[in-house]
């Protein structure tokens, strides 16, 4: 283990804490927040992959054009994924609100309409 891999390990840590939160969760809103955290893990990973030392942001408005920059592709993907992830989270929250309306609780154990 070395400092060189710390950002990757952080991404794994965030992924795993999100999963751990979900499997132990007894509240749908709690589950959804953990899912939102879990999704940020891949943002960390993507940006860490695109990063290189001694480079600058891929935006040239106040730096010379021949300067070394980091990868813009992973940044583009991350930006879109953050916004779309928010939409997915909002959809799940809307479901959760509805579940609460039907069962009066947010415990997924109360969802017993489908089984077997």
């Amino acid at each position: 283990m070395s400092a060189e891999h710390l950002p990757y390990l952080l991404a794994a840590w965030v992924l795993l804490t999100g999963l751990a939160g979900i499997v132990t969760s007894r509240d749908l809103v709690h589950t959804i927040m953990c899912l939102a955290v879990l999704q940020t893990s891949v943002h960390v990973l993507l940006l860490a992959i695109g990063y290189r030392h001694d480079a600058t942001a891929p935006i040239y408005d106040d730096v010379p054009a021949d300067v070394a920059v980091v990868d813009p592709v992973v940044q583009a993907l991350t930006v879109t994924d953050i916004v779309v992830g928010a939409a997915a989270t909002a959809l799940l929250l809307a479901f959760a609100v509805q579940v609460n309306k039907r069962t009066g609780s947010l415990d997924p154990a109360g969802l017993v309409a489908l089984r077997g």
Partner: protein
Amino acid sequence: MSARGFIGLAAVVLLGAWLVEGLLGLPGFGEDAPAYGLALADLALAERNATNAVSAVLFDLRALDTLGEALALFAGAAAVQTVLRELAGEEESEPPASTAVDRRPAPTGDAVRAVALWLVAPTVLYGAYIAARGHVSVGGGFQGGAIVAAAVALVFLAGRQATMHHLAPESALDITESIGAGGFLVVGLVALATGAGFLGNVLPLGEAGRLLSAGTIGVLSVLIGLEAASALATLIQKFVEQTVEIRQEEP
């Protein structure tokens, strides 16, 4: 803790062990970035006169991905509208203005409200600015849209959902969102018709660093800004509506 908790945590630990072992085999952080991304960063400036390479990737080089994500956002907003509408009691018509004022939720401190309201206009302007200059400097449509949506959140904090409803009724948000996503598609199809390829560039490139430069990148960025702002505002608005509904029911 339940049995599921224990088994689940054990599985998570197992997965973690495998993941960590594999990730340690990756090349070290910051040693090198993918060649593909670096090549695209060069092309953005060299061939599109775009000083923001991220926007060049989003709205030209890999605009198809952006289209896919934009439509996912579009679908998400449309879905939340449908799911929460059922809850609102199937009532579609807008509430009359007089009752709408009474639907104010928690009393918010006057100071908070004043500050929030004062912040709204600059925030919206800032968001628009970010979206419009996406091809030149930091930011772009998604960021601008998100910032405008944050402004909508400020209106809510100011306890003015009646105002919010007035300024941005659901039907209007539907339209602006459709203009954003639809415009993106139409620009892409126009480019296809003119032979530049779907979502290709059809406008003059201008001079790098100027507002009118980088061809279609700026146009698409603004359209995405519109789409993202409307979609996120729709989400906030639908959720606000829910809480207001309930508070009104309380004695």
